[in-house]
């Protein structure tokens, strides 16, 4: 009987050993002497026509091992992919290297290759690029004007995508409403800032001569497919491996020019070539997140029921599509969150601007919609004199309503159908955890301190991206290798997947090794994003586990000449009704098979695809208590409670880690982080001195609780846990800040970050600031 690795244990991670001792192999650790460094020459203009690219100062330099520019790229080379285009989207794709026009500061224009990164940077500095400046478009407001300069004149508009949703009869509901609320929220651009910058390395595989590309990516399988398309190398001649990835959060969920360039350099100059992003480049040329303008109107009855919401979203996607650039804006479809709101309409448009491309970043568009909807609830409560918890109570979808078709669809997951949840229970649990009822007394006792409390629900899509394959290989001593398509990016997926499979098969955790992130080993899978790892990877692993059980039973039946029904799998072993002397382990089965000259290892190698639609909806209720220093404007988050429902939990230790990490990213967005551009479109933050990230001192005291309403959509009953921490935090913290400021203070909605400067400006608008 094996109970060593049950599903649900707070198992310590198997990933930790090498990471704690400095033996984890990240991309930079793969660089060997003799490999060449690639340096990208980047545009210094936001919008300009390229007049010339002059390599003459480097061409004869003995350190120069090669140069690349658009002119030297293969004829008819494709452009970087986007996977969330719908009918009618205008194909504003990136070239690998800019042709004719540059559209943002940092855009790759050329590349030089040298023996090391120092020499490559020397050379890159000497490549002369001539520009004729064009007027830049630096925000969506300018971008949609009829007389705006066009980034892509062939499209006749900077609006490259639009999605429209409609449920019920919003106009009628607005006409009948007792109260109308309208707000416009501006969300600033943020940088995901994974601690490991991006990087890629192309080399030839010894023995086979295939091209082997290593990349710090969340999507090695897709990267291989796209590299094949772009370079013309047949897929089977390409292998892509993601080594340890030092954080992703969406920024490594795209196919980037540099990944293509190292492979082209290998092909063209015959040298293994690497590119390591430096932090300054990350701020220019890695995807950014969030920026949009969201106008929301709500119709509310006197009793506090929100009867309709209308939303108009203009997403600033930067200069071109980068993989999932439409998704954040289009996610406005899920604006209503946990609230019934029978009538709904929305329009989401993506606007190209002369800035770094936008892509999904932890939560995609959900942090924006969460903040907007949750602010609307507070504003409605305030206008009606209702308690903030009470107004939510009156609008929440009941626990018996599932499955619930929300009548809208969502990019990447089709129709929005809430699978399960218990929103009222989340609310009551969080109110208790944060001591909601004791808060007025705490606030009154705070003396000079001004406290504020904010609530926020979040309902977030998880597990999109399509079917998930998995395979299992059995090793001679009976141990298993799970071949998974889920790329580890720090979330501990190897531990979780091993737990799930071990629990499913009744084997000890140590019997299972997890192999991922290598296109040779792991099956062709979508990759790691949309909080899909544990749910899809886990269910796929179980499916493969079932196939393994069937194969093992069949093999045993053959060997012992018994009918298949007489052989059962129980607690990791085969049990026969008769004839099988005693429980037979996999190792025993293999030995027995060998005695009969049967190659059991081949027979027991299985693979399958988890095909069922597994888009499930994770929900949570967050509450934050903030302290506002009225004379300095400094905001500190003191306490933070979350009741989280991600269905059944494979490993609570890791889920809690995901939530806390997510909350701190939401906190960073709310209080500190912003990528801004000057009037010529030059990014103002190019390092961590200017881009302010949260530190330990900013972390609140956490109170985390869980409610498990299993998802009926997948056998494990799981839902994703990677993003709702981040999305809920922006809503709760923004509401807490508004609460601390008080109802008389105009709240600059969403125009984060709520820096001390911004907070004092809000207080000033009311006039008179210090009461102390």
């Amino acid at each position: 009987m094996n109970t060593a690795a049950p599903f649900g244990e707070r198992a310590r991670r198997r990933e930790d050993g090498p990471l704690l001792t400095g033996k984890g192999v990240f991309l930079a650790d793969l660089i060997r002497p003799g490999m060449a460094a690639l340096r990208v020459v980047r545009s210094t203009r936001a919008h300009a026509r390229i007049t010339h690219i002059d390599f003459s100062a480097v061409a004869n330099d003995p350190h120069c091992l090669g140069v690349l520019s658009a002119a030297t790229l293969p004829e008819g080379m494709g452009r970087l992919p986007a996977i969330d285009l719908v009918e009618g989207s205008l194909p504003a794709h990136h070239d690998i290297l800019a042709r004719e026009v540059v559209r943002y500061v940092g855009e790759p224009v050329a590349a030089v290759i040298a023996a090391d990164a120092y020499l490559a940077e020397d050379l890159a500095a000497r490549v002369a690029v001539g520009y004729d400046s064009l007027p830049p478009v630096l925000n969506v407001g300018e971008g949609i004007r009829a007389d705006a300069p066009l980034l892509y004149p062939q499209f006749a508009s900077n609006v490259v995508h639009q999605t429209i949703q409609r449920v019920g009869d919003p106009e009628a509901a607005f006409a009948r409403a007792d109260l109308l609320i309208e707000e416009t929220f501006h969300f600033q651009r943020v940088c995901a800032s994974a601690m490991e910058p991006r990087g890629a390395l192309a080399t030839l595989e010894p023995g086979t001569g295939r091209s082997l590309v290593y990349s710090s990516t969340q999507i090695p399988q897709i990267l291989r497919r796209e590299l094949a398309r772009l370079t013309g190398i047949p897929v089977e001649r390409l292998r892509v491996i993601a080594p340890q990835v030092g954080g992703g959060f969406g920024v490594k969920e795209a196919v980037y020019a540099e990944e293509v360039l190292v492979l082209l350099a290998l092909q063209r100059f015959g040298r293994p070539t690497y590119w390591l992003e430096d932090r300054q480049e990350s701020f220019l040329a890695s995807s950014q997140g969030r920026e949009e303008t969201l106008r929301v109107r709500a119709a509310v009855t006197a009793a506090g029921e929100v009867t309709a919401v209308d939303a108009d979203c203009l997403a600033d996607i930067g200069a071109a599509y980068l993989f999932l650039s439409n998704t954040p804006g289009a996610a406005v479809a899920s604006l209503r969150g946990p609230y019934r709101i029978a009538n709904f309409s929305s329009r989401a448009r993506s606007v190209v601007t002369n800035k770094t491309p936008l892509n999904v970043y932890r939560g995609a568009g959900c942090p924006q919609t969460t903040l907007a909807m949750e602010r609307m609830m507070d504003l409605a409560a305030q206008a009606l004199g209702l308690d903030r918890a009470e107004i939510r109570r009156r609008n929440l979808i009941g626990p018996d309503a599932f499955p619930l078709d929300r009548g809208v669809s969502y990019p990447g997951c089709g129709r929005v159908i809430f699978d399960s949840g218990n929103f009222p229970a989340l609310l009551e649990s969080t109110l208790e955890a944060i001591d909601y009822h004791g808060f007025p007394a705490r606030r009154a006792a705070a003396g000079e301190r001004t406290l504020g409390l904010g609530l926020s629900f979040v309902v977030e899509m998880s597990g999109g991206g399509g079917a998930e394959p998995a395979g299992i290989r059995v090793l001679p001593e009976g141990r298993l290798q799970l071949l998974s398509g889920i790329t580890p990016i720090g979330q501990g997926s190897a531990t979780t997947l091993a737990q799930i499979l071990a629990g499913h098969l009744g084997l000890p955790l140590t019997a299972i090794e997890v192999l991922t992130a290598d296109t040779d080993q792991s099956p062709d899978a979508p990759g790691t994003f949309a909080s899909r790892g544990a749910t899809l990877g886990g269910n796929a692993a179980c499916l493969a586990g079932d196939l393994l059980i069937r194969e093992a039973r069949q093999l045993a039946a053959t060997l012992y000449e018994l009918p298949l029904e007489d052989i059962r799998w129980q607690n990791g072993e085969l049990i026969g009704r008769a004839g099988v002397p005693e429980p037979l382990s996999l190792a025993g089965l293999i030995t027995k098979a060998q005695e009969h000259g049967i190659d059991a290892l081949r027979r027991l190698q299985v693979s399958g695809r988890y095909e069922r639609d597994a888009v499930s909806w994770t929900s949570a209720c967050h509450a934050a208590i903030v302290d506002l220093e009225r004379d300095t404007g400094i905001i500190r988050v003191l306490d933070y409670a979350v009741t989280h429902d991600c269905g059944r939990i494979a490993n609570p230790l890791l889920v809690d880690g995901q939530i806390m990490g997510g909350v701190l990213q939401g906190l960073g967005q709310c209080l500190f982080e912003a990528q801004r551009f000057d009037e010529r479109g030059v990014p103002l933050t190019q390092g961590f001195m200017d881009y302010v990230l949260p530190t330990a001192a900013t972390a609140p005291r956490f109170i985390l609780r869980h409610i498990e309403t299993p998802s009926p959509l997948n056998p494990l009953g799981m839902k994703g846990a990677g993003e709702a921490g981040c999305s809920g935090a922006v809503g709760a913290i923004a509401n807490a800040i508004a609460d601390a400021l008080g109802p008389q203070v105009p709240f600059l909605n969403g125009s984060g970050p709520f820096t001390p400067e911004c907070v004092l400006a809000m207080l000033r608008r009311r006039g008179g600031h210090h009461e102390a």
Partner: protein
Amino acid sequence: MQCLDIRVIVDGKALTATVPVRLLLSDFLREQAGCGGLHVACGHGVCGACTVVLDDVPVRACLLLAVQADGAAVQTIASLPQLEGCEPERGLTPLQQSFRRYHALQCGYCTPGLLVATAKFLAGCPSPDRARILEHLNGHLCRCSGYANIIAAIEAVRA
């Protein structure tokens, strides 16, 4: 380009090398001294990922030149047992174990620098209160963990 010969003791092993004078210590340690455990996340001194101990003083390896370490002893994550004053080759150190127990790392990229700095910090201040721990952590960025577990892991090992 000017190069200099340097002698450095890295994690107890004496090394000699000829290095360009502009080579950063972080690059030297990673590329020539085999210290893959030293991570560079920002390259401008803010994140703390590259923290090593140079002649007993914690420093940012990305803000020093390799030639400046000439004649010095450098300790990286491989010297963590020594920095914590425990026997090497005996599995994880108490700090490493605590990080594991409290799930104080996710992607692990920030971890080695954080462990080196924390070991050194605790050696000089064995029972820090929370405020001291936060002051120490001010020099380290972690984008994954949310910090709470890092604080808990350090609190659990203080004397």
